[in-house]
């Protein structure tokens, strides 16, 4: 069993977002970066499956060197080795093409990642990678078990869930409760220092989409407070003032 887990390096969920350079760049000053929360679920399940099946797990990141602490953390959690594609990705198609390129050189049985990154929220990289490799992709996956050459997948669908059985190889976008997040232990942290982290240059891809500028939403007006004793008047306000009923 060969597993590839793709991780993003994203601002912490509580980070205050702002932009610099005439609103063309994220202001990374004072922002704590983390492994994408959904990717962290994918990694946790990947490590469990690797331990069950006795396979290998490679972690892949497309991004710059400042992500290395997060890559080392993934190694400490249980990945065997890591690959960083040295690029400053701006586009889903570009990222997918890098992942597909790495995957095409190593036959992975399972390619896991989060359902979406929490910075650009596209949720399309798993689908792109699946199609580029000519294998099925499913998302968002809430439960994943392997048996023989098949995966049993519980996937969230609109207003419910669906259970699928599909032959490997597969690309899966993951979300909770697929596994509990894992916290690296001291032994993991020590061994992670010497595990291989290979840096490779990106393959060239035509510019598909190019971000131009970023902006913050307009500030919210003041909240109108209604005394609890007159709670029922809210419904009238919603109907006549806010016009949402």
């Amino acid at each position, binding site marked *: 069993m060969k597993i590839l887990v793709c991780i993003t390096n994203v601002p912490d969920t509580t980070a205050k977002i702002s932009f610099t350079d005439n609103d063309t760049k994220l202001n990374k000053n004072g922002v704590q970066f983390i492994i994408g929360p959904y990717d962290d679920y994918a990694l946790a399940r990947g490590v469990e499956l690797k331990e069950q099946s006795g396979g290998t797990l490679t972690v892949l990141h497309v991004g710059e060197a400042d992500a290395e602490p997060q890559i080392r953390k993934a190694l400490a959690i249980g990945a065997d080795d890591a690959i960083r594609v040295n690029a400053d990705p701006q586009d*889903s198609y570009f990222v997918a093409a890098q992942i597909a390129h790495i995957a095409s050189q190593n036959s992975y049985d399972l390619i896991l990642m989060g359902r979406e990154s929490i910075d650009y929220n596209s949720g399309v990289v798993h689908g792109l990678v699946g199609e580029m490799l000519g294998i099925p992709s499913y998302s968002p996956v809430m439960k994943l078990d392997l048996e023989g050459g098949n995966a049993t997948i519980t996937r969230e669908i609109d207003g419910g869930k669906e259970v699928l059985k599909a032959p490997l190889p597969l690309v899966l976008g993951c979300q909770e409760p697929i596994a509990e997040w894992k916290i690296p232990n001291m032994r993991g942290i020590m061994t992670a220092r010497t595990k291989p982290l290979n840096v490779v240059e990106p393959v060239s891809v035509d510019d598909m989409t190019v971000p131009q500028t970023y902006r913050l939403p307009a500030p919210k007006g003041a909240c109108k407070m209604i005394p609890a004793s007159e709670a029922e008047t809210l419904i009238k306000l*919603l109907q006549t003032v806010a016009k949402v009923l």
Partner: protein
Amino acid sequence: MSVLIYVELDNGYIKKTSLEAVAYGAKVAEKTGGQAVVLALGKAENAELEKAGKYGATKVLHGADAKLEHENSLAYADALVQAAAQEGSKVIILSKSGLGDAMAARAAAKLKAGIVSGVTALPETEGGFKVTRSIFTGKAFATTEIKSDIKVLVVRKNAVEIDEANLTGSNAAVEAFQPALRDSDFTASVLSVEKADSELSLTEAEIIVSGGRGMKGPEHWQPLIDLAKALGAATGCSKPVSDLDWRPHHEHIGQTGIKVAPALYIACGISGAIQHLAGVNGSKCIVVINKDPEAPFFKAADYGIVGDVFEILPKLTEAAKSLK
């Protein structure tokens, strides 16, 4: 040249978010020239599909093959690409959902097309094709230029204003569409599907009543459900509530759950952690009911009531009932 819009069907009906995508696509077609063509896959009556015309579509392609009845993003993406080739479509539009993103991604890879998901407004088409999309889970917006010849857009709810009372389009012609289906798209077997049919879907709902830990336990949910019923609303919950199994996971709204954009969001006993706000900041109007006047959610709200949810909810339900 045309704009192709994929519409999702739910029990034979076009989803509301998909009708918005049609209206969006028709406006793009106006800007770029050409027609707005709709693709629908699965079971539906012509009388339903024709409705897409009211939102600006000129033609509806209907793939009714029995193999397409069960939602299958792989086969659907194949069908989408074939429809785009048949219609010479340069812009392909889907509404934001798990299915929309999956189909859009696979179609974009097949077509070597640039893809932007989470689009919040109509494109600018002068001096390049530029779209605005939501990023950082609603904390910011990005303007992105799509450079590829074919462009795939996944649009969020409320990306275009629709005046339901004054739709000007007439019924669209429905044409049968038979894509070539590949066996490789049908390698998975569906073991079970669990769908809460009676419940309103959160992503479609115009009104959502949502509960947090302040509801004190799953056995206390009835007052919230009563208000939702009186308003014709869907019910949601915060992450701690679904983590505690008070409510099913598919009701979890927030950064790591469902992102919603209703006209009205009523939060009951939810303090408003930044991760929850990230899932609701697309809402037009937010009401917060909490016993703690310092709850951060009030800062993001349009209306607030400080007090006991169990006293306030029945009052609201009574007032809502008397509206009708």
